[in-house]
């Protein structure tokens, strides 16, 4: 736990969790509607 309280480590870990979470939310919630979240990047 003490490593997590290091600001640099905390920011990196938080960023990985938050960015990963929101990417999953964007992808799966579009997918559930039958839509492609990555539409622009695939075209």
């Amino acid at each position: 736990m003490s490593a997590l309280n290091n600001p640099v480590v905390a920011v990196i870990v938080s960023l990985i969790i938050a960015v990963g979470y929101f990417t999953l939310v964007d992808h799966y919630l579009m997918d559930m509607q039958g839509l492609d979240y990555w539409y622009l990047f695939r075209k």
Partner: protein
Amino acid sequence: MGPVTRKRLFSIAALCAMIALLLLPIVMALPSPATGEEAPAADGAKKEEGEKVEKGRDVYYKTEGIVVGAPAPKTTDGPRDYPRYNFESRVLLWFANQQHLYYGSFVLAVPIFCMIIEFMGVVTKDKALGKRYDQLAYDFIKISLTAYSLTAILGGILIFTFLTLYPAFFGYLSSIFRPVMHIYALMFVAESGTLYIYYYGWDKMKEGFLKWIHLSMSVVLNIIGTLLMFLANSWIGFMMSPAGVDEQGRFLGNIWHVIHTALWNPLNVHRLLGNMAFGGGVVAAYAAYKFLAAKTDEDRAHYDWMGYIAMALGVAFLIPLPFAGYWLMREVYAYRQQMGITLMGGLLAWLFIIQATMIGILFLSTNYYLWQAMGRMRGAEKYQRYIKYLVFLLACGYMVFITPHTMVMTPAELKAMGGQQHPVLGNYGVMSAKNGGINVIITTTVLSFVWYMRGNKVSTVSWAKFGNIFMGVFFTCAYINIVWLAIYGYYIPANVRVGLSVPQVATTLSCLFFMFGLNSVMMKGAKQMGPIEWGKISVRSQYALIMLATAFTWMMGLMGYIRSSVRLFWHVNEIMRDNSPWAYTHTVGFAANMISFNVLFFWISILFVFWLGSLTAKKVPVEAKVGVPGSVPQPAGSH
């Protein structure tokens, strides 16, 4: 038999009577098939064998059924179908309807608050805090009791207005909804009986087992109230999206089809949340009024706390309200695309710009109140210097949210601008940007709440530093995701873009649930910098509460008008045409003036109700008002 046992038996009997009252209308309705004609005679079987049974096709469910009702009347402009005074009948009906709705919403919402607050009072381990909650719940129900009588009177006025000014239409509607209207009337009786027993039994059932019985009564009361609202919603649902009738408007014998129309459920959810937000706003305004008029510090502390609780409950229901609105609009589009276009992109679109303005005002007032409220706790100063950034975020979100797609202009202005869309601002007047705008506003409100909840506390958990950084990063990523999705929407086709609103909403809700949850865990056993000094809040904050309530009232009037106007020249959409001289859509200016008049009338009359309530202020069930400023236990679960 001892007096305690007698009391117990009496209270159980009262609760059973309430449940029986709740079930009575349902039982009575069972044998009533709502034929729209006289009940079939016993010798019905002896009817001529060759008699033809006419069948019709349900306009919505597309099922076949035996025609049992008369067709919708084809009205003509004249004293038979549209008797009138030398005044626009529609405006009179609008006024009667709106006032009844305001009071109806208020008296349905407040008992739900009472139930929640009374429950909090019963389950809390802190006895003093429990008494305060109980006193607060009693204060709430006391306000609604006087308003309840006025609701019933206004309901009577509304029915008389319908009967005298729109007899043909009301006759048709009541022929379709005959059993529903009877059930409605019986439920109203049940609601009244339950409410009076609940209110007058407060003092006698204030402890132990009896308190639980009393609490159960509030549950029954709220079930009845909610069912009442659902039944009333079925009438407006039928007018907008009729079902259970054929194309001539003849009833086909299935009352459930008539009730369960395409828009009934979205309307139910939207109205329930709207009523709760409105009720919270009105009670908060009442508390603000009492705070401003208070003579002692003790009263100021009490009403400051009351205002905060009412505001928090109101806003808790305000946050999901836009999402319920999206669902309703989605169902409107699914039912009739043209109806959706009339609402959002056509004749009524400008009213949605006004609606966006009002929603923005609601959230700005809420945030302003929370920032002011931080002034009553020591330690919250650390957040003051960051508030300007929240103001910036709110202002950006608000400006995008209220930008219209096209402008109302003179031909010369149109020529100078090169079209109806402004070359720069026009880009923001689309749903992609607006969704981003409102989600930024709601997320900022969530952030303000989180700051308020931790205002006078310092977390003592071992991972506090990580927790704080994680919260900051999560909120930042949420803002980036919302704005990114809004911008992304400009680069992909419309059929893909519409889906982006779902992850945007999910981002906002993630902040709401995860950050509230994380904050609560972090603040468990936190070090307090000082108590919350109830009553020590700026006077400006109380005006923010009044602003909040007024904005709720105005927006409710506006949305009711929009919902009703979308039928255009139909009494019942595509079934019964409105042939009165007033079957046109009012100008935006006239509608806004009418809504303002309704709001003004409501607030003047509710002030009278507040004043009546204050006449009995000395008769309170709790021996004395508990708690003094400075030493008051924290009111919400988060404190």
